[in-house]
């Protein structure tokens, strides 16, 4: 087996994870080049080859797979730097994007700018046509009105067009015809349609997914082609695979067809990375956290499977498509502590960012941040931040913390401890949102800690939630890039064909699934997977009659299609009861849509053999006074070099383990062991 290469373009750094045949993991970082993101990729590849002492061609010849995640699509949306994009709707419904779901957040704040629709109104046009929920054509497509609309768009200089007509997911004949007319009238314009992108009920999310696809599609395609060409020119012969928002990967052609799936592609890999870390340490139920400079992300992995949600948003714009359920809160190292007008101490969501950054960076920041608190509490080493590349100034941190300590009548240390606790509470809220609020008891889950600051806060958060096991992976600093090299190929298929409860047409259901299954299989085979590596997972969007929300129920393998109605009904009752505490068993169950996920499993990455010597970890490079809640003011704590630890070693807390890109706190009453792969396993004694 050759090298599997994960490349994650972030805002500051482009991360490379190289997993070789022996299971050894190499991490490399090179500064990102936002104006031409591929430049950083080319540079980094050159550096990797150079480090290996071979030419780029020889290096790429050893590479078995390149898997790539990037923020290009996300940034295009956030910066609004995409092409001039228009939408074509059913006449009478041009305001779908402006009405959204009709919800205004923050009830009592009337001094808020109204939401700016993603496409301005004069570029949202209606055309004559109407299809009903049954798929029947109520009014045929008025082609003159389409040509008229397209002429208007040509005059406006539109560069991309999204087509989203009502009920196109049950009958796409009008949308397809509009696409043909666009090809005739506006041959140079990029066009896409909603039945292709997201064939599900609810016009707003479907329109949003389609518009975002049109908006990011052209730039994404150009970028991906350039990158693929470069790789091909230098000897890489396989497909370039792309990380999707679903947590699975896909070939470039699939991404070009449905670009919305490349939005949020980087962070979506974190849970896959966490799942892989968990599984190799014998844990399949996991909370994967990632705490960086500005935000804290958490997601749930149950039975080694990532969790999806249909409520994905980027920059306030819903993606419409289901993506990895990553809950994010503005809680990171740079989060600012402040006192509100009622005298309550708050932390975040505002961040001091990278510039000026926390006060202790000495770049002119004066406000106290979480990093300042962590420094004062002894969690961070002023001389070993980023492996010693940046020096932290404790005096400046204390000075900043005085701004909150004095009005609250606290000492500087007490104020720092307060900041630590409050930011932990904010993060706990995010953890609760993806666990308790979805009917999941976090106490039976292990926590995987990612990001630079995750290892400092994880134990405290875990303690509050009753979680007793923590895993701090060696790859914590690059958990997302790592997730890319261990994720599966994953494609989502959906067919909207509502069936009323008790009236399931088994033959029709069998037909729906067999159509989706054969197209999923064809797609995966074309990507090089043979039958043994293909999984097909069926699910259905279910609800009670009259109930307007639905739940996606996964159907177990091997259901006889004849019994599918009974099976679905029972599974839905169970899931409804688990989530919402009741089931209406006297009621039938409706299905709105049928889903199929095609999964192509990559060969498992090899792991180095375990070495279990049971030796006490030694070699503390220093002792440091560290504050632990409930353990008195400060405790003399050994500080260890993480890179010098050996598999099998263990120690009892308190201890601090320092890596160049992350710090791990082992509080008193906890025991840490070094796992075979070098991950740290921390358990409450």
């Amino acid at each position: 087996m050759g090298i599997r290469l994960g490349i994650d373009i972030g805002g500051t750094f482009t991360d490379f994870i190289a997993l070789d045949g022996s299971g050894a993991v190499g991490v490399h970082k090179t500064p990102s080049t936002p104006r031409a993101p591929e430049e950083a990729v080319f540079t980094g590849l050159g550096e990797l080859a150079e480090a290996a002492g071979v030419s780029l061609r020889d290096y790429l010849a050893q590479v078995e797979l390149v898997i790539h995640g990037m923020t290009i699509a996300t940034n295009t949306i956030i910066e609004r730097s995409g092409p001039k994009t228009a939408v074509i709707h059913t006449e009478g419904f041009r305001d779908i994007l402006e009405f959204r779901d009709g919800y205004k957040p923050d009830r009592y704040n009337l001094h808020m700018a109204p939401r700016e629709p993603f496409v301005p109104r004069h570029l949202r046009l209606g055309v004559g046509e109407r299809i009903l929920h049954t798929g029947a054509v109520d009014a045929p497509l008025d082609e003159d009105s389409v040509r008229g609309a397209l002429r208007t768009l040509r005059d406006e200089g539109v560069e991309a067009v999204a087509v989203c007509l009502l009920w196109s997911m049950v009958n796409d004949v009008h949308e397809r015809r509009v696409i043909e007319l666009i090809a005739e009238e506006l041959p140079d314009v990029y066009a896409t349609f909603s039945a292709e992108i997201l064939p599900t009920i609810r016009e707003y999310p479907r329109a949003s997914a389609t518009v975002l696809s049109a908006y990011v599609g052209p730039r994404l395609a150009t970028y991906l082609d350039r990158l693929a060409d470069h790789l091909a020119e230098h000897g890489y012969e396989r497909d370039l695979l792309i990380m999707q928002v679903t947590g699975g990967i896909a070939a470039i052609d699939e991404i070009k067809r449905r670009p919305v799936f490349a939005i949020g592609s980087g962070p979506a890999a974190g849970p896959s990375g966490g799942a892989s870390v968990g599984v190799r340490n014998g844990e399949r139920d996991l909370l994967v956290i990632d705490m960086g400079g500005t935000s804290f992300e958490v997601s749930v992995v149950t039975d080694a499977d990532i969790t999806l949600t249909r409520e994905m948003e980027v920059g306030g714009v819903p993606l419409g498509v289901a993506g990895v359920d990553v809950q994010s809160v503005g809680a990171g190292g740079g989060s600012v502590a402040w006192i509100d007008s009622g005298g309550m101490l708050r932390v975040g969501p505002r961040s001091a960012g990278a510039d000026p950054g926390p006060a202790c960076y000495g770049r002119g920041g004066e406000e106290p941040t979480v990093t300042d608190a962590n420094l004062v509490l002894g969690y961070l080493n002023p001389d070993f931040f980023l492996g010693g590349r940046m020096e932290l100034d404790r005096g400046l941190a204390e000075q900043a913390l005085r701004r909150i300590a004095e009005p609250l009548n606290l000492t500087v240390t007490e104020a720092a401890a307060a900041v630590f606790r409050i930011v932990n509470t904010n993060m706990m809220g995010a953890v609760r949102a993806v666990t308790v609020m979805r009917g999941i008891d976090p106490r039976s889950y292990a926590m995987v800690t990612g990001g630079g600051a995750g290892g400092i806060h994880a134990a405290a958060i875990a303690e509050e939630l009753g979680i007793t096991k923590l895993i701090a992976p060696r790859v914590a600093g690059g958990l997302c890039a790592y997730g890319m090299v261990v994720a599966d190929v994953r494609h989502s298929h959906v067919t909207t064909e509502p069936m009323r409860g008790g009236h399931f047409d088994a033959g029709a259901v069998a037909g729906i699934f067999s159509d989706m299954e054969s197209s999923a299989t064809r797609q995966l085979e074309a990507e090089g997977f043979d039958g043994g590596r293909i999984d097909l997972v069926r699910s259905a969007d279910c609800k009670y009659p009259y109930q307007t929300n639905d739940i996606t129920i996964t159907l177990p393998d091997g259901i006889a299609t004849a019994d599918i109605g009974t099976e679905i009904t029972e599974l839905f009752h169970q899931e409804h009861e688990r989530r919402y505490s009741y089931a209406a068993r006297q009621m039938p169950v409706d299905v709105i849509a049928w889903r199929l996920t095609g999964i192509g499993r990559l060969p498992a990455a090899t792991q180095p053999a375990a070495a279990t010597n049971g030796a006490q970890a030694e070699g503390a490079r220093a002792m440091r006074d560290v504050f632990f809640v409930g353990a008195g003011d400060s405790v003399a704590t050994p500080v260890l070099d993480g890179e010098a630890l050996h598999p099998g070693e263990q120690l009892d807390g308190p201890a601090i383990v320092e890596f160049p890109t992350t710090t791990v706190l082992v509080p008193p009453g906890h025991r840490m062991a070094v796992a075979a792969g070098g991950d740290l396993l921390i358990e409450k004694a």
Partner: protein
Amino acid sequence: MSATEPLGAGAAADGGAAERMDPITFAVLFSALHSVVEEMSLTFEHSAWSSILAQCRDFSCAVYDAGSPPNAMCVFDGLPVHVHSQPMCLAAMTEFFEGDIGEGDVILANSPYFGTTHIGDLVAVAPVFWEGELVFWAAATGHQMDVGSAYNTSVPVQASDIWKEGFQISPVKLEEGGRLRKDVLELYLGNVRHRDFLYGDLMSQIASVKTGRDRMLELLERWGPDQLKEFGAEVIEYADRRTAAQIAEMPDGTYRSETWVDSDAVGGTNVKVQCALTIDGSDVHIDFAGSGPASRSGVNASWSTCVSSAATPVFTFLDPDIPHNQGCIRHITVDAEPGTITRAQWPASTASATIVPGDAIGDAVWRCLAQALPDRAVAGCGRIAPNAMTAGFDRRVPGVEIPFGVILFNCSSGGGATPEFDGWPLMYDQNALGGMKILPIEVLELHYPLIVRRHEIREDSMGAGRTRGGPGLHFETEVRGTGQVDVYGFGDGIMNPPFGAYGGLPGDGGALYRNEPDGSRTFFSAISYFRVKEGQSWVSASSGGGGYGDPLERAPELVRADVRDGYTSRDAAERLYGVVLDAEGGAVDAAATAARRAEPAGRRSIAVIDPESADAGTYQSTLMGSRDTYVLNPHPPADADFTL
């Protein structure tokens, strides 16, 4: 902690959030309770069945202490009109069941004379016991799609008394000691229409309060009752301090306004709501003396609706994150004469209280606050538009008849402009302030035998101004697959549109009409009843919000963009904003605009509040042609058969 300091403007800088409790524990518990209530809301929203709860979020959840009256530990993200009223209902329930409240009970009520807002709002509460002691309550209020009225609507505004209004639920235990009372459940379901989905809605509401109860028990286990009770006291003081400090900064004085309810459902028009708002130190007192008489219909405020609707506008002039618990509410007192439209007396119906006259009550208070605080004034929000309650039978599958009922909030009104921003679309009304959701057209058409013909922004529907109001909408619905539907309009403000402030103009008021087979239209007052037959359609046109500031001061480029986007017509651009566009309409003609804006005739006098008199709506009168007719307050005929 520092000693308690006098309340007042300096309170923000005093010794921290809590006077006795350490500030960190206080902040941690504040967030913890926030998550409890959020989880209650999510449970309700995700598991409810009918669109009014699951999609439109016409519900509110909160946690209270066991004080008398109960104090809110955490109110969060609910509908404003429920904030004041929910604890009033809880107080009535605890008084009713005094000495007979046990672990595992779940209590219901919908009677406005036991503190609910109107009969449509069912309140469910669950006590939280700790070691045998009642310590907290989890509560959820949710709008039910039927109330067992003589009329097939959950807002039976035509009812002249509580017996016509519907099935009155005084406090009753649905669960007792953890056991579901099947007798009570059947008594309820047997007295309402659509029992299947009302059952689902009820179960989701119960699941919400039980979730609240269970989470509070976990918090009790973690923190102990003493600490939580202390937090309860502290959070009241915290809200009190912040509220007092901010009201103290407002200019003292008495500000007066009047506004009018379009019609009272029984032929009376322009019923007055009169308001005097006094800012005195750190308190606000609101008095509705002089308001019109109570109506012989459901167009009356229950007492809890009156105080809620009156307090909500004041909340919007405070920091939005102040908890609206009793510490905040105690600074806002309300008076209304019994027997007026602002405070009905038993046995008067209050079926539409939360909107008519609740919206007008709030409107009157916003008019006073606009005078008191010009720089933070908010122009008038549209009142509840003709959001018709629609009921009938779904007969789309041959041989199957399924009764249905739905409220179509999709056509809701625009919000008022502020000094900084244009208004929002879809603010719903004074008492929801944008806190509901619309029904996706495809979900609507899948669930109900209705086809939506148009759902779009309506040009020139909003008040012009330096900042303009949020747009009103056009919502046209056709009946298909049912035979006929009963439509109950329960709106307000067609005749009395959202006010403009400081030179801004009013919204246009909107209209409600049915398209007749002969091409004519029948216009209805906002409160009305009518039938729509198979293949026929009706239109709910909502009003845009009021504008703020002189329209002649709006940047010409913004006006041009509004014309291009179809919010503002070319004619209105010229007439109201003094902006002249070139022949193609693509660019501002700067010279013509300057000339036009300099014309003395184009200048209007700058009114603080516009209009100051009744009957100022313009849309309906502009739209009506010679063949069209107008009907005021039609009622269902005495022999109406709602099972047709």
